[in-house]
């Protein structure tokens, strides 16, 4: 059904055309038949009546059985009186003038021979329509009408009538105008039906793109308007749910941010004295020394966790800002390593003079997390490789550790994801890699993790290169 697969517009136009052709055709046929019948009846009834009357008028003068002269004379008189070409037949004889008897069909002749009424028939002779009439001459007795054996036939051409019928048939082709008009109407109707459909499709597409405030302008009260109204109602409902979800999520995030900030003040007081605890621990013995060191160490860990939570909540609330500066990439990476005392533990490949415009603090955060992570899990053979393409800066941090298990590799950037549950909490806040990736994305870059050929993991940072 290829037809059903074509566009709605095409289908509507075709349907309109078919309907208009059918109705115009049916009307044309009906009116043609009606007119033709009328035209033909209007000419054949007078002919039939005329012949009947002429015979009635002469009935008294006809002697039975008629002589040859009487047959000829009767035919002549009837032609004069009623028109047409008349032939009279009695027994084996016929009038000398008049049409061939072959013009009259056998059925007509039989009707006339056995019947008691006038019969007529339209026949085509040499391609022209001819009205043939036949009637028996009846002898009237008291009770009955008896055929006398005398048959009267008349034939008259109907060329003029046929011509007017033909003209009428030709005129029916004006129905083509109706078809043209139908096409115009079909296009208009298709347009008015399809416009709301098109609008609905466009609105649904916008909606799919996340423009949840998209609504349709609804006109009228037909089915399509009803569809538009349903769309709007559904859109309202979904927008409401989305807003509700966003509100709940924003509340949850704000709570995390608030909690983190509230933790900060007591932590600041504790941090101020961790140095004191560390120093005093050297003079203490036994449990007191261990306790002092534990409090000091865990205060530092808690600080890092709270800092990371605040950083993450800043990404979540999209308030994290880039402070761009022109940075010598090799120098920046080396500084990050130097500041943490890692310079001797990491082998580097840092091209000189490679500059980019980025946020140096955030680059430092990324490097600290990646290298710190590699040193922790990858042993001492950590490599940092800096390179640049035309549009991006690439930094690879690779180690020769055990690598990432297949079930872990997709989760290393998840928050609080711990690949090894046995690993101590003090290994980190659990947010480091998540924060590193957020920092990369804030720059419009990406951070990815993979396993190296030959063992070990490699983290690849790609940052768009905004030239210094």
């Amino acid at each position, binding site marked *: 059904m290829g037809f059903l697969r074509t566009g709605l517009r095409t289908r509507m136009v075709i349907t309109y055309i078919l309907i208009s052709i059918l109705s115009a055709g049916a009307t044309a046929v009906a009116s043609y038949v009606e007119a033709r019948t009328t035209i033909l009846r209007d000419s054949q009834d007078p002919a039939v009546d005329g012949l009947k009357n002429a015979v009635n008028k002469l009935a008294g003068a006809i002697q039975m059985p008629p002589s040859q002269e009487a047959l000829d004379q009767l035919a002549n008189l009837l032609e004069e009186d009623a028109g047409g070409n008349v032939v009279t037949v009695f027994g084996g004889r016929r009038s000398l003038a008049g049409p061939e008897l072959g013009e009259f069909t056998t059925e007509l002749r039989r009707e006339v021979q056995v019947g008691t009424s006038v019969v007529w028939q339209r026949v085509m002779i040499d391609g022209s329509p001819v009205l043939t009439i036949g009637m028996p001459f009846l002898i009237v007795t008291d009770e009955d009408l008896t055929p006398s054996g005398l048959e009267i036939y008349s034939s008259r051409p109907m060329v003029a009538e046929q011509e007017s019928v033909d003209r009428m048939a030709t005129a029916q082709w004006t129905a083509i105008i109706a078809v043209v008009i139908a096409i115009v109407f079909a296009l208009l109707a298709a347009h008015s039906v399809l416009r709301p459909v098109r609008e609905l499709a466009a609105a649904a597409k916008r909606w799919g793109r996340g423009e949840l405030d998209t609504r349709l302008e609804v006109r009228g009260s037909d089915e399509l308007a009803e569809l538009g109204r349903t769309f709007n109602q559904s859109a309202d409902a979904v927008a409401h749910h989305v807003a509700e979800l966003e509100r709940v999520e924003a509340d949850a995030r704000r709570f995390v941010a608030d909690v983190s900030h509230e933790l900060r003040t007591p932590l600041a007081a504790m941090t101020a004295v961790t140095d004191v605890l560390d120093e005093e621990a050297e003079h203490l013995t036994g449990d007191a020394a261990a306790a002092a060191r534990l409090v000091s160490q865990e205060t530092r860990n808690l600080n890092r966790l709270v800092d990371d939570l605040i*950083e993450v909540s800043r990404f979540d609330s999209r308030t994290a*800002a880039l402070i761009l500066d022109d940075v010598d990439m090799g120098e920046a990476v080396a*500084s990050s390593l130097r500041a943490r005392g890692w310079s001797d533990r990491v082998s580097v490949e840092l091209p000189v003079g490679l500059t980019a415009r980025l946020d140096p603090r955030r680059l430092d955060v990324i490097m600290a997390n990646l290298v710190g992570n590699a040193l922790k899990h990858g042993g001492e053979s950590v490599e940092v490789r800096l390179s640049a393409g035309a549009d991006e800066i690439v930094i690879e941090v690779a180690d020769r550790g055990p690598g990432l298990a297949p079930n872990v590799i997709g989760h290393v950037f998840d928050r609080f994801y711990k690949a090894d549950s046995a690993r101590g909490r003090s290994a980190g806040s659990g947010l480091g890699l998540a924060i590193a990736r957020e920092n990369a994305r804030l720059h419009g870059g990406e951070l990815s993790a993979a396993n190296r050929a030959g063992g070990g993991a490699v983290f690849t940072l790609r940052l768009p290169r905004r030239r210094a």
Partner: protein
Amino acid sequence: MARVLLIEDDLAVGEGLQIGLRRQDHTVSVAISGERGLDQFRAEPPDIVVLDLMLPGIDGFAVCRQIRAGGDTPIIMLTARGEDIDVVAGLEAGADDYVVKPVGARVLDARIRAVLRRTSAERGEREQHGALSIDRAALVVAKHGAQVPLAPTELRLLLELTRSPGRVLNRQQLLESVWEHNYLGDSRLVDACVQRLRVKIEDDPANPVYVQTMRGFGYRFGPLPAG
């Protein structure tokens, strides 16, 4: 070692820092509001002020500006991590350095000592650069013979730049030499200090001739236009 005025509204943080700094041989007095801090500052001028920016009443920025208006006492501000607006506004108000809370007493002590070192004299001659005369021994800068009052960090930055006129120093180098930040520091410290220095020594701070910006590289002193 130094007399420190700590202006911090949180009692526990104030006490913690006081304990920690005291162990580093500083004399610490704590004020719990901006108003009290200014009163104590006038009554008993300290060597250095450690100032929390988020204070009830007069906030840290206003305190910073008032102290700057009256003298060149070094100011280290305490800020919450990552609140970038705080840092910029604090530096514009005239702070010499900033420390992100939470901070251990040893780190704060190191910063205090670094700032205070900026006010120590050097050996050297009187130098003349255009209308500026610089006396490294007396730590006095004059323009057209009139003394220009410079905060310690501004002075130290100018001394660092004039040590090698015409040579470009990048921000990280300046952070290490002036601020003694031997880690990846915040270059906005340098930018803010350069702005303040220009206001004091340039004829037209928008078109500087003494401290010139080399975009993408850093800053350099001069070269001065002929005449």
